[in-house]
């Protein structure tokens, strides 16, 4: 056994128990967001009469299908404040949960290959610095000092004009984040029901009063939907219409590379990102597929296109071999910001719009939604991200910060 062998979480009581008839809180979706909310309900507010239901195993959806990058350099102050909080919570998560999540500092370079994009990245750095996220614009020479593997000519066609530098960025092992929260929640009495698909919501008048599962109804004081790509279906049961479109996002991983690769390299012009995982392999991703899709299928076209982009600025990657690829179906919101909290339907809350940027937000979103459920009041940190922002003409448009637009 080495430290990278993964063991699935032990859920001993699941085999011979059934869900209770009622819980204070039922969370649909056992991904990072659902489990973190359950964890913070139990640890911060003593609310333990909580069930997390998942149609598959926990972390089977987008929590286990991302590229695990944690960063805070977003494009609007409200987002920077939110993701900055999440970044700091991640840094403390191992101490908080007592679980090793392989958290590692991986500074991010967001490169520009043209003069106009360099201005965009300068603006990003200034804006983030002003919002309390240490950031600065660095020139090509400093880029090469930080990441010596870069080809500063960009294959002759995409010369590196500089990058916005985000030294606090990090990565963590995605499954372990889900398991850390699940274990912490379980120890405090939260129930986690795997392979328990929700097929409808229970309603009484204008209120959501529980969920209908394949095995029977479960009543709940509050129902939180923390599902990914299928959120439109769940919200539809409550009569809530969402600004969400489901797109497939692909990513892949190469074999191991012995040299240390010091950070996360992203490109604003080429639209791709590369980072090195703890086992030395490279994780790569790019934009989500343009057309709407509910299919977790990968495509050769995509792998070819991302590989070409990556080799343009990191020629050594041409020697790497692609081991695995995977696809998540992402709940992409039309303004590229999350949708959190109240829905206009009593008893029904949402955590959605995580699109291709949800992993980094798990701790903060879980903590803030737990606060909302416990107190009934929407905390200031997530107030700008309510579903009602669209009708109030206060959309949080931030497509260029996703890195996957």
């Amino acid at each position: 056994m080495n430290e990278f062998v993964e063991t699935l979480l032990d859920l001993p009581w699941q085999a011979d128990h059934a869900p209770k008839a009622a819980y204070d809180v039922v969370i649909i979706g056992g991904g990072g967001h659902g489990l973190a909310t359950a964890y913070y309900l139990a640890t911060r507010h003593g609310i333990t009469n909580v069930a997390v239901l998942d149609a598959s195993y926990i972390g089977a959806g987008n929590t286990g299908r991302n590229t695990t990058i944690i960063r805070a350099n977003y494009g609007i102050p409200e987002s920077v404040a939110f993701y900055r909080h999440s970044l700091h919570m991640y840094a403390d998560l191992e101490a908080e949960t007592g679980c090793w999540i392989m958290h590692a500092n991986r500074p991010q370079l967001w490169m520009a290959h043209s003069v106009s994009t360099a201005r965009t990245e300068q603006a990003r750095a200034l804006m983030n610095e002003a919002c309390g996220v240490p950031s600065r614009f660095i020139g090509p020479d400093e880029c090469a000092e930080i990441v010596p593997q870069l080809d500063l000519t960009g294959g002759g066609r995409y010369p590196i004009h500089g990058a916005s530098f985000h030294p606090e960025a990090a990565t963590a092992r995605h499954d372990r984040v889900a398991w850390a929260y699940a274990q912490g929640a379980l120890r405090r009495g939260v129930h986690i029901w795997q392979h328990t698909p929700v097929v409808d919501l229970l309603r009484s008048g204008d209120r959501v009063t529980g969920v209908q599962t394949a095995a029977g109804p479960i009543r709940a004081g509050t129902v939180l939907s923390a599902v990914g790509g299928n959120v439109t279906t769940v919200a539809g049961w409550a009569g809530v219409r969402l600004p969400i479109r489901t797109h497939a996002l692909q990513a892949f991983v190469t074999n191991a590379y012995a040299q240390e690769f010091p950070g996360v390299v992203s490109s604003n012009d080429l639209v791709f990102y590369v980072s090195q995982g703890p086992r030395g392999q490279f994780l790569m991703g790019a934009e989500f597929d343009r057309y709407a899709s509910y299919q977790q299928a990968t495509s050769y076209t995509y792998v070819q296109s991302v590989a070409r982009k990556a080799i343009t600025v990191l020629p050594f990657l041409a020697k790497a071999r692609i081991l695995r690829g995977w696809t998540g179906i992402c709940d992409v919101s039309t303004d590229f910001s999350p949708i959190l909290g109240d829905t206009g339907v009593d008893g029904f809350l949402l955590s959605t719009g995580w699109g291709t940027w949800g992993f980094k937000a798990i701790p903060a979103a879980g903590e803030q939604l737990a606060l909302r459920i416990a107190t009934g009041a929407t905390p200031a940190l997530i107030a700008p991200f309510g579903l009602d922002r669209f009708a109030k003409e206060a959309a949080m448009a931030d497509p260029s910060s996703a890195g996957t637009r």
Partner: protein
Amino acid sequence: MLRVTCPTCGTRPYEEFRYGSLFPVTPDSITDPDARQVDHAWMQDNVAGPITERWFHEAGCRRWFTAVRDTRTDAWSQPD
């Protein structure tokens, strides 16, 4: 991998095409004009099933066409 069928040229790989858009439909149940405007601007049907879309065969005949695709299976069917 997605393969798209152009009515002029036949079935080709996805990369020959440009994805246009789908047809946004604001439900009749929304009657308030402001609410209809918000719905039109932001909300999505996001159907898990057959949807009607526009595609452009960029590398072929360079014509726009309408097609119906199932978002769960990528199976194509004829538009009405």
